[in-house]
């Protein structure tokens, strides 16, 4: 069965298009407008397709071919509950406006149903050409006298390229595609070229047969320039690798080839692969297809050797972060994450004062976020729920398809025993001993991180309060226990609660959850609810002792107190 199962009303073909680009675009614009009006009624007669409508089945196909609804994992009904992906991520498919279906419905086909699928159509034309080729001895003779070089020449001239004064190849191919839309059976010049060539009989190994080579170029994806893999076919009847089309949809809702408006991400997520094309490819290029599959798997594995890095906001271990993913590059990143066995990515802040996305610098320290759930929106955006797991230092960074990837080093807190020893020595030491303590503090900061006397008072962003420099007395004050630091923080929160500081209530009501009791988790929770600059808070990331983190937080608390009361 053909995958050209979407029925959309015919649009009158456009006539007399010159090769000038702007005229082509203007014509496309008109056609695009015409098509827009038709999308609302696009229906699919195949019961396993989400766009299925019994009316479509009734009006397009009237015969006794029955279609099994066998790919249950692909067909989801609208509003279906979350499913758990192999990666463990809870996945909420995009909501769909169309009703669910379950029934097996007999579908009948007209004997002469016109095929619209452009790739299948091209293949059919190749076959027709091959069939028309005379099997005379004459033909054999001619071919045996022709060299391979002549074949090469022939195969390339189908791709019309204009000289400096004429139209460009792109225009030719665009108008060719448009003529194909109007006349699906394909009478364009490229086909005539191929017919002439068909008069030659194949020589040499099957790999060099013109038919095979023509077929190879027909089944090439226009996005990745490789053999179609998991081919999906758009309503405008162009075929692409499923992954290539998904990526293209991240960037634009138009078909890469003909630029017609495509239905959104949700539509294609439930659209099955073009089985006809897949069968043809797997039959003729069995080994090449298997190789392609291996190459893709290898690529996906390689992509995961480096940690994907989301440059966006401040996150801490144990704390939830919810992200609205709309940038094309991050859509791709999230898809790759949830398809992998390790659905996580690193979150870092952009470095101060860098603008342009893509060229922007990033902070050195960040937090690994584990993806808990993904709610897809119909247009391909998503809401991603994550929770922080561990901190890291970015050792090296690169770029993969537009987003940052990096080699990271995990940062863990010092052991509880070390933490206890640190607290005891702090409490035991007298105030004149603070030089030694300063050194101890250095050792507990991650190497290369901020020193014990970081410059406070950063530019504040969005209502955050700038911090005054950490005073000498604050550094020296080592006589408090870790529990006392926590008590100071708690009483600060209580004080604010009783005064109902609106920012606090809002923050607490947000997603940070109840106040943790563990000093480490408490330090991150406390930092998140405080109304200070994110870059100030980010200074907690390299500190490997909860006690020292709390000490810094108490400094913030005291600074706020002194400026408020």
């Amino acid at each position, binding site marked *: 069965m053909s995958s050209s199962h979407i029925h959309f009303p015919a649009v009158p073909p456009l006539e007399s298009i010159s090769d000038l680009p702007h005229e082509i675009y203007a014509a496309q614009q008109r056609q695009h407008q015409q098509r827009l009006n038709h999308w609302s009624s696009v229906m699919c007669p195949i019961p396993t397709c989400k766009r299925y409508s019994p009316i479509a089945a009734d009006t397009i196909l009237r015969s006794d071919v029955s279609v099994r609804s066998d790919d249950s994992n692909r067909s989801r009904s609208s509003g279906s509950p979350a499913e758990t992906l192999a990666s463990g991520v809870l996945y909420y498919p995009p909501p769909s406006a169309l009703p669910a279906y379950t029934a097996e419905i007999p579908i009948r086909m007209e004997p002469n149903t016109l095929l619209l699928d452009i790739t299948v159509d091209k293949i059919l034309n190749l076959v027709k050409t091959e069939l028309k080729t005379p099997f005379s001895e004459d033909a054999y003779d001619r071919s045996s006298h022709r060299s391979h070089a002549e074949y090469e020449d022939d195969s390339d001239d189908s791709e019309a390229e204009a000289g400096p004064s004429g139209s460009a190849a792109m225009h030719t191919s665009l108008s060719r595609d448009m003529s194909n839309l109007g006349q699906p059976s394909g009478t364009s010049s490229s086909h005539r070229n191929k017919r002439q060539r068909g008069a030659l009989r194949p020589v040499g190994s099957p790999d060099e047969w013109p038919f095979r080579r023509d077929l190879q170029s027909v089944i090439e994806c226009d996005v990745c*320039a490789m053999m179609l893999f998991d081919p999906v076919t758009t309503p405008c009847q162009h075929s692409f690798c499923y992954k290539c089309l998904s990526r293209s949809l991240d960037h634009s809702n138009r078909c*890469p080839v003909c630029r017609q408006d495509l239905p959104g991400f949700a539509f294609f997520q439930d659209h099955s692969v073009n089985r006809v094309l897949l069968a043809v490819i797997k039959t003729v290029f069995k080994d090449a297809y298997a190789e392609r599959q291996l190459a893709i798997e290898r690529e996906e594995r390689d992509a995961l050797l480096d940690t994907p890095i989301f440059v966006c906001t401040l996150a801490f271990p144990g704390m939830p972060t919810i992200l609205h993913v709309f940038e094309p590059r991050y859509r791709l990143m999230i898809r790759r994450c949830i398809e992998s066995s390790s659905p996580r990515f690193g979150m870092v802040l952009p470095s101060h004062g860098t603008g342009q996305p893509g060229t922007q610098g990033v902070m050195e320290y960040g937090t690994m976020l584990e993806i808990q759930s993904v709610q897809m929106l119909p247009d391909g955006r998503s809401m991603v729920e994550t929770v922080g797991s561990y901190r890291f230092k970015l050792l090296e960074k690169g770029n993969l*398809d*537009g987003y940052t990837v990096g080699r990271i080093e995990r940062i863990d807190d010092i052991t509880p025993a070390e933490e206890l020893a640190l607290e005891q020595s702090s409490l035991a030491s007298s105030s004149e001993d603070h030089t030694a303590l300063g050194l101890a503090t250095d050792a507990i900061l991650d190497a290369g991180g901020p020193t014990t006397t970081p410059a406070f008072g950063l530019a504040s962003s969005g209502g955050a309060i700038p911090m005054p420099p950490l005073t000498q007395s604050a550094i020296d004050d080592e006589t408090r226990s870790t529990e006392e630091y926590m008590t100071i923080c708690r009483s600060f929160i209580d004080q604010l609660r009783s005064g109902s500081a609106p920012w606090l209530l809002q923050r607490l009501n947000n997603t940070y959850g109840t106040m943790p009791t563990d000093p480490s988790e408490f330090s991150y929770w406390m930092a998140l609810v405080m109304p200070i600059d994110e870059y100030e808070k980010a200074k907690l990331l390299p500190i490997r002792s909860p006690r020292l983190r709390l000490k810094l937080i108490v400094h913030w608390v005291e600074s706020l107190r002194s400026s408020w009361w």
Partner: protein
Amino acid sequence: MAALPKRILKETERLMSDAPPGISAAPNNDNLRHFDVTVAGPDQSPYEGGVFKLELFLPDEYPMNPPKVRFLTRIYHPNIDKLGRICLDILKDKWSPALQIRTVLLSIQALLGAPNPDDPLANDVAQNWKEDEKAAIAQAKEWTRLYANGE
């Protein structure tokens, strides 16, 4: 860190072995996403006989995002400004991942053959073009002789 996508390798190979007439494009040795390009002025255009140097860069998201292209040779053209930036829709919102380096360069060559002063980037040039096309064409020819002589 990331390997060059197969598609870029394929496009490069084909550009090197089978360049369109009047166009050459070769990647830099130290950055395979950066191409040194020359485009010959089309016959019967004011740029006939000139050889124009351009630079072309493939961003990380290519082919999802268009290549960045700029004229290095000075050119008197209503759709190319003095920084060499090109006003061409397929390099902006009309980009599609099915287009290629090859098609981009052919379109630029076609743009040399068909200046469009109604959609200008270089306003002064476009104005001259509209007010006195003959003089503008003479100026374009002069600049071609002066700057695009392949040196």
